[in-house]
Structures are given as structure tokens and as C-alpha cells.
């Protein structure tokens, strides 16, 4: 450690020294610029160029030199802070907590950080369960549906044909039977056919 001999300054000395330096004029600006580099100089982390610049400044500035010395003294004092040892139970407690963790993150743990998403998802599930549990509406089996589809096609054709002006001039019985049958089946009870 260099410069520790200047430690006889009392805390007020820095202020006095600052005034003296201020009266010399030009050092002020550069002191402000040096402030942020003093720690780096004390801990030896400055780049070579910065270190040389700092040393040049220190050779002409008593205030910064004092500060460097006192920062170094503080740094040495901080080494005296006692180190504590982990208590004997520390590892045991950590492992107990590790053991309490789920072995693998399950996919739904993704929801955990967002209670709102989890809530929305569970409401959706509930809604679907409710819909699913309702008594089924009377439904048609596949062959019944097909029959209706066929009849519907015939009916659609009928609509076109019946509005088709030239056809009305043809003798009626020629295509009337099938259509009448379909019409009748549809309007009465389609389920009964076949």
C-alpha cells in the first residue's frame, strides 16, 4: 500500500485540502471527472491508460491523493468483518425443501404464475362438463339423416321445377308422382320412410 502515511489527516482535512486545491484553480474539473475512477484505481481494475492518467492527476492533486489513501484504508478495514459459518442444519433444510419439490415440472405448472389464466381455464372446463352432463336432445341416427338429405334434394329440385315456366305447359302427370311422394313424406313424417 502506498501513501498510507497520509492517514494522519482528520476527517475534516479533506474539506480543507479541497479548498486549497480549489484556490489553485484548474484541478477542480479534473477531480470531478476522476471521482468515478477512484474505486477502480483503488481496486486495481482500471485499464492501463486510465491508471496512468489517474497517477498523473494524483501527483498534482492532494485531495484525490488523500481520498485514494482513505479509500484504501477503508478497503483494508472491510477485511476485518468476521465471516460466519452456515449452521449445521442448513444443508438438511435445503434438501428437505428440495425433496418437497415435485420431481418434474408438470405441464400445468405453466398456469401457476397466472391465477387468472388458471381460473379462466377451470371455468371453461366446468362449463364444458355442465354442457356434457345435460340430457341429450332427441337425435337422429345416420340413416335417418341421410333420408332427410335425400328428400331435401328432391324438394329443392321441386322448387326449381315448379317455378320453371316451360314445364307448366307439359302434361302434369309426367313428373308429378315422385315429387308428390317426396313432398308428402317430408311434410308428414320423414322418419317413417325406409
Amino acid at each position: 500500500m502506498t501513501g498510507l502515511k497520509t492517514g494522519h489527516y482528520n476527517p475534516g482535512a479533506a474539506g480543507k485540502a479541497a479548498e486549497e486545491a480549489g484556490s489553485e484553480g484548474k484541478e477542480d474539473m479534473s477531480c470531478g471527472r476522476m471521482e468515478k475512477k477512484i474505486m477502480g484505481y483503488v481496486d486495481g481494475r482500471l485499464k492501463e491508460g486510465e491508471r496512468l492518467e489517474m497517477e498523473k492527476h494524483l501527483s498534482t492533486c492532494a485531495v484525490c491523493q488523500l481520498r485514494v489513501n482513505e479509500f484504501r484504508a477503508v478497503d483494508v478495514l472491510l477485511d476485518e468483518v468476521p465471516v460466519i459459518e452456515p449452521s449445521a442444519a442448513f444443508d438438511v433444510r435445503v434438501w428437505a425443501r428440495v425433496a418437497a419439490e415435485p420431481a418434474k415440472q408438470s405441464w400445468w405448472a405453466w398456469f401457476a404464475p397466472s391465477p387468472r389464466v388458471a381460473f379462466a381455464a377451470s371455468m371453461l372446463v366446468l362449463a364444458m362438463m355442465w354442457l356434457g352432463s345435460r340430457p341429450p336432445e332427441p337425435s337422429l341416427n345416420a340413416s335417418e339423416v341421410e333420408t332427410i338429405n335425400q328428400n331435401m334434394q328432391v324438394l329443392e329440385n321441386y322448387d326449381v321445377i315448379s317455378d320453371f315456366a316451360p314445364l307448366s305447359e307439359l302434361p302434369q302427370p309426367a313428373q308429378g308422382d315422385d315429387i308428390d311422394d317426396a313432398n308428402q313424406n317430408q311434410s308428414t313424417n320423414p322418419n317413417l320412410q325406409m
Partner: protein
Amino acid sequence: MAAMARSDVQLMLDVKAGDEQSFALLLHRYRSPLINFLYRMVRNREQAEDLAQEVFIRVYRAREDYVPSAKFTTWLFRIATNLALNSVRDNRYQRMEISLDAPVTTDAEDGDEKTMDVAEKHPNIEQHLIEEARRKMIRQAIEKLPEKQRAAVLLHKYQELDYGEISKILECSESALKSLLFRAYETLRVELAPLVAQQGK
């Protein structure tokens, strides 16, 4: 020991792959630095250990998603620092509430350390008392620093992390970190003036 040579990142990747032995090595490597860092942050040993446990559990929980994008120590101490800063702020709030009923001025930890030191070494009482007063003064000076400055000093001085890492941990620029350290040391040299003066003799 080949295992000790594995880097923190490699150990963490092994933990991710399901190797709990690697977690044991990380625990062994970092429990003491973490507990000491947290102790100096929150000033209470029990709370420091609780927080250190919390740090390790968070590391363990995050293993599945672990991607070695930053230095392991940056990540570890970032978790620890955030827990410590929150805890310090909570403590302060609690202490404000307690102080309405009864003033709490002394730190319970003082007694513990005193008795431990006496048992440890007793060359002569006078020497011992001087040393103890010194340590107490230093510790109290650190404790009095605003928490962010304190965290900066602890990470810089005791964990020897570089400026880049510390500024990531504290979520500030390197320039802001340098001011934090500068202000902290300015305060410390005034608080510790009698000891700083002795240091020079």
C-alpha cells in the same frame, strides 16, 4: 477431484439433466458466500439462512428452464440481492410498526458474536475489547449504508464480482454502480474516520 473442476454452468446443466449430486456441489460452493452476503444485508443470521435457502430452492426450481445465457454467479446473486432488498424493506416497515409499542435499538446478533469471540481468543482483555469495538464500528458503518450502496459494496468487496456483473445484479448502469461505490466509500471513510486515521500510522 474432477467434479470440483466442473464449471458452475456445467453443474447447473447437470442438475437440469436430473443429477442431484451436482446440485449438492453448487450448494457446497455457494452456501457460505450467500449466507454471509445475506447476513450483511439483513443483519440477522436466522433470516439470512432462510433467504439463502430460498435462493437455492429458486435455483433448483428453475433448473428445467435453465439456459446458460449469463454467468451463474450473476444469476445467483441477482436472486439473492432481490430477496435481500425486499426483506430489508419489509423489516424496516415492521420495525416502524414495532417501534410504536417499544423502541427496539439493539441488535440481538451483537451478543452472539461477543461471546463467540471471547471463547475464541483471549490474549488480554484490553486488546480484545479494542478489537471488538473496531469490528462493531466497521459492521455498523456497513449496516448504516443505504441498502443499494451496501449491496454494491458487498458484491464488489467480498464476492469480487466485476463491474459488469454487479451492475446486472443491481439492474443499473456501470456508471451508476461506480457512483454507488464512490458514495458508499465516501460515507465509510467519514464514519470510520478514527480507524482510517489509525490505519495510516
